[in-house]
């Protein structure tokens, strides 16, 4: 077995172990935790352990095997799976758009100090504009925008909102990474009269990778959150976000149901993060490793 395969098997089993551990902790808390929450130093810090707030693991799991609604022949697991797959594709699209924009902006900002000074505060501000204020605008592009025969499909609005959350960490992290190239290396490139673009691709980007990897990780989960929220907010059907809100309405009578969709969203995020992690391993495999005994 190759060391890589061995490591991935190890990692996977560690993950499974950690999930099991969380499950055990959850049930343990249900066993000893106060039904109606507890206070510590006057603040409610202990969560409630009753079945509405914290359903049993097995009731959540068994919910996957039961039909979504009575009389329906689709079991929840297939609905959640389909939803997650739908949202996954949107997230990938959103991530791709966000990464393109984020990296593009960071390059622009690294190139022109003026742009960095002028733009960065507004990028920050853009992240504090709630989707609810933007949703009407972006949703109204659906069906309206028509450039060169390209009509704006509704799902694209959701992907754009995913991109909206993804681009910012990517832009900031990449910007920092691009500036992190050692001055000696910059001097070398300068001695070759390398154009800015050449320096960018041959030096700054490779040097930026340690900064870009965490940025892309954040961007990936940002894209997922953005897409799921957009599904909730703009009424796009078919994805995990829509399922979550629809199941959330039934949390009173069927508390386990919403958790099935929540786990679907978590799996979605993990899949996205997995992509980034794989690219991390690939990109960093030839870098000097720390010596450890």
């Amino acid at each position, binding site marked *: 077995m190759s060391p890589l395969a061995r490591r991935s098997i190890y990692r996977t089993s560690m993950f499974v172990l950690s999930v099991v551990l969380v499950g055990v902790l959850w049930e343990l808390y249900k066993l000893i935790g106060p039904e109606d*929450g507890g206070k510590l130093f006057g603040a409610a810090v202990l*969560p409630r352990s009753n079945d509405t*707030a914290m359903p049993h693991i097995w009731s959540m799991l068994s919910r996957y095997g039961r039909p979504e609604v009575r009389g329906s022949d689709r079991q929840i697991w297939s609905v959640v799976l389909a939803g997650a797959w739908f949202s996954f594709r949107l997230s990938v699209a959103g991530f791709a758009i966000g990464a393109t924009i984020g990296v593009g902006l960071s390059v622009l900002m690294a190139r022109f100090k003026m742009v960095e000074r*002028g733009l960065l*505060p507004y990028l920050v501000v853009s992240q504090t*504009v709630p989707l609810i204020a933007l949703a009407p605008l972006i949703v109204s592009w659906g069906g309206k925008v028509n450039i060169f025969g390209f009509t704006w499909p509704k799902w694209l609005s959701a992907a754009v909102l995913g991109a909206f959350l993804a681009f910012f960490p990517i832009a900031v992290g990449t910007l920092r990474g691009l500036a992190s190239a050692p001055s000696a290396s910059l001097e070398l490139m300068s001695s070759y009269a390398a154009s800015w673009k050449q320096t960018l691709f041959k030096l700054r980007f490779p040097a930026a990778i340690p900064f870009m990897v965490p940025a892309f990780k954040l961007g990936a989960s940002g894209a997922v959150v953005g897409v799921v*929220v957009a599904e909730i907010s703009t009424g796009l059907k078919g994805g995990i976000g829509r399922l*979550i809100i629809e199941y959330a309405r039934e949390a009173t009578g069927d508390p386990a149901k919403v958790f099935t969709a929540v786990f679907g969203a*978590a799996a979605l995020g993990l899949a996205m993060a997995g992509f980034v992690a794989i690219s991390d391993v690939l990109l960093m495999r030839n870098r000097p490793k720390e*010596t450890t005994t």
Partner: protein
Amino acid sequence: MTTSTRIQRVAPPMVFGVVFVALWESAVRGFDLKPYFLAAPSKIAEQFVKNASRILEAASVSGTNALVGLIVGTIFGIAMSFILSRFGFLNQLITPLAIALNAIPIFVLVAVLNNMYSITSEIPRRFMVTLVVYFIVLVNVAKGLTQVRSTHVEIMRSYAASEIEILRKVRVPNAVPYLFTALKIAAPASVITAFVSEYFGGAQNGLGSRITSNIANSKNAAAWAYVLGACLLGLIFYIISIVLENVASRGGVADNTNNNNKNK
């Protein structure tokens, strides 16, 4: 700082802002966009002035939530990245969970947390901000703690430095720029998380509930006035993180990056 460099620093964002607002205003006027769709900046400014005291009040509620979450999340994020960089075992155990947790959109988690705690308390919201900030800090700082030059680690090991000492003297200084990158991302994220957490329940005293209720009432200009409040809050957090960065890296690191930038 001389006046001219100060102008250089302040002018670009000013110019950009003025141009942006002017475009917006003329778009609203030129295309006769109705207020229910998009409010004009002038109307927003008017509402902002009119509701200034309410905005301040709401911003202080959301801002406190954001601040508490930002501080707690940063502390936990740093602490956890230390633990993870020290114990690879825990790292593999916890990182995927942290990623999974963070990929769950806040709406849902707030809903779950609201049920686990009392919907009338601020704890679920602060918890939420903490979680978001925690993750941002964690992934960045963890990378900063591990991406150290191997020569440096070797030198420390030749001093028989304990892992703790290597952490303090090599990993931490190396992670400082990563931490501030994280804070720059986390500052606006904490603000938006704080008031987005208000959308689906809880006391109606923060920016989030004001924004939703005004939008629902088709009072778009007022809603955007609160959004403006949120933006300013985020900007203040961001500026604080930059100031902290400058203070923290008075010494070599900052100078070094300046030095880098000087070379073409």
